[in-house]
């Protein structure tokens, strides 16, 4: 199975693009916004103004392309690396900063936002996504759930159980594997014998699609089709987006310990943002002037988000024992009093 691709790796050639120019510009803006956030988040982390942060540089097309296929009522069930997808599905930048700053205010998302919090236990989120997807059918809602996972996560038992549940119940769920080549330090070749993750879909009797994960249009198109299939009652789809993690696993990781600079450099030439920028330029749909205006807007959005995050109240110690149960237990009540006294 060759990965689906519309725009050549260097951005020079675009064939049979199933998107209007306006859509492409919208997609480009969303992708640049995701990168803008990620790069600045890493800087904030280095300044000690963010906790441990898992960057997604290089994977913006995979994350944003899939999220763009969702309607506002659809759900996103993301892994920890998917801040880019969450931003594209409506998570405000200030909220994302507060989340990675590990501030309680950042962990309660807006009530109308259908994004679940980032998942650290690998592959566990997939089962939740299948349940969320089915819950819509029980309530006569037509929502779809998109869930995301990395290549390493496909080794977990929950990956298998989720695909099987999704298939058996024909759940309206789209499962996106961002195959970025590395599970922290373990390359995909040591993670699995069959390197084509999408092939596994056949084992569950569901469609599997492999796309060039650095071509926004390929991910977006495959996701749009999968979302439509799910909404039409035709069940789940497994999408493998072949991409690359340009940065470290998290802000605490040093990838030079386990992979060569050469392998990373090879992927720089396939950068998803530059690729679409080149393609849009060739279509005369984008130029430096528009780029500058967009960057100015993003800078403003970012600065406002940081300000808002900085103004969030400092958490109080007693918040530790709040929101465990709807009604506080006697033991938690005692602890609450102790913590409040400080």
């Amino acid at each position: 199975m060759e990965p689906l691709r519309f725009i050549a790796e260097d951005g020079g050639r675009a064939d049979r693009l199933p998107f209007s120019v306006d859509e492409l510009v919208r997609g480009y803006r969303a992708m640049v916004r995701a990168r803008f956030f990620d790069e600045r988040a890493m800087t904030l982390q280095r300044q000690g103004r963010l906790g441990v942060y898992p960057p997604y540089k290089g994977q913006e097309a995979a994350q944003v392309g899939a999220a763009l296929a969702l309607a506002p009522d659809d759900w996103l069930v993301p892994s920890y690396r998917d801040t880019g997808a969450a931003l594209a599905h409506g998570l405000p930048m200030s909220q994302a900063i507060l989340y990675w700053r590990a501030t309680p205010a950042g962990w309660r998302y807006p009530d109308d936002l259908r994004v679940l919090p980032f998942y650290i236990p690998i592959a566990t989120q997939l089962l939740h996504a299948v349940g969320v997807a089915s819950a819509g059918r029980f309530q006569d809602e037509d929502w779809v759930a998109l869930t995301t996972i990395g290549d390493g996560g496909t080794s977990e038992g929950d990956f298998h159980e989720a695909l099987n549940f999704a298939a058996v119940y024909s759940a309206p769920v789209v499962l996106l594997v961002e195959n970025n080549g590395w599970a922290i330090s373990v390359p995909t070749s040591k993670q699995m014998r069959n390197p084509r993750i999408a092939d596994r879909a056949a084992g569950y009797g569901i469609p599997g699609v492999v796309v060039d994960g650095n071509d926004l249009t390929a991910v977006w198109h495959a996701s749009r089709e999968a979302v439509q299939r799910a909404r039409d009652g035709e069940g789940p789809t497994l999408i493998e987006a072949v991409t690359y993690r340009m940065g470290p696993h998290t802000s605490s990781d040093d990838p030079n310990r386990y992979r060569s600079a050469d392998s990373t450099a090879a992927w720089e030439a396939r950068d998803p943002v530059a690729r679409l920028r080149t393609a849009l330029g060739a279509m005369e749909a984008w130029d430096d002037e528009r780029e500058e205006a967009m960057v100015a807007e993003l800078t403003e959005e970012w600065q406002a988000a940081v300000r808002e995050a900085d103004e969030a109240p400092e958490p109080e110690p007693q918040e530790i024992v709040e929101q465990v149960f709807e009604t506080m237990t006697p033991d938690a009540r005692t602890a609450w009093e102790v913590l409040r006294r400080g």
Partner: protein
Amino acid sequence: MVEAARSETEAGMRTMTMVQAIHDALDLALERDPQVLLFGEDVGMGGVFRVSDGLREAHGERRVFDTPLAEAGIVGYGIGLALAGMRPIAEIQFAGFLYPALDQILSHLGRYRHRTRGRFTVPMVIRAPYGGGVHTPEQHADSPEAILAHVPGVKVVIPSSPERAKGLLLAAIEDPDPVFFLESIKLYRSVKAEVPEGHYRLELGRARVVREGNAATLVAYGGMVEVCVKAAEVAAREGVELEVIDLETLTPFDAETVLASVEKTGRAVVVYEARKIGGFGAEVAARIAEDAIWSLQAPVLRVAGWDAPYPPFSAIEHHYRPDARRVLEAVRQVLAA
């Protein structure tokens, strides 16, 4: 003692086994709330203990259904359903089969309200038959309640009679947070009792005094309550009145009821069928030591499973599960102190 939220019509009583009482509660819950779903392995045909007999026929195969044979899947799928508005009731065929789901339970089930600061909750019930005493095959007789009670954000309920089971299960299903509901296999069909018809709820998080006495306090739950009551009846023939407390809800733990009793009797024996070390009875004993040690006339003793797995050897397995004789031995020790 059936208090709290009796249904609109005053109902009569009916004689039921524990299985029938639980079936009755599930039937009522499915009837009353369209968001309630019931699922698990073999649940559609009634389940291996026939608890859900006829419920698929009564409520439709959309709401009462079989799952693939995968416990992490059952729990994880249920969490997702609950996050998006449903009231899932998952059956795990035996509590000893729960272990594949521990990641979902430890990492997510009890954490969701906390990590989303109340935005998302998981109003889910996980039912599982537990415990020994009926010569089940290996791994079918485990009592993993202490593992579950150690998980923040989940409630653990273990009923000791048909009447309590029905009211507690209805309360668990209507609770806004996740609840484990462990059902003693030994009690499933061995006990018949009068159970109120119709809907009623019993409060979670409350222990109850099953039998009053002044000589010593026996603390138990689930299948061990009848063992303690039997021991108390034997002791009463010798003029020794034992107080028996049924915890019913392990977490949130009702320390108040236990402490009040120990302050009165000055002696306590905690009885549970799981392995003694690290069992929930250790928490009970520790709490008594922390808050009532000045009332104690004797060390707090525990009667529990030995330091070994529950034995799959049917001819000798009855030596593992505490019985009235072992409870009375411990009682004699605390009375002699």
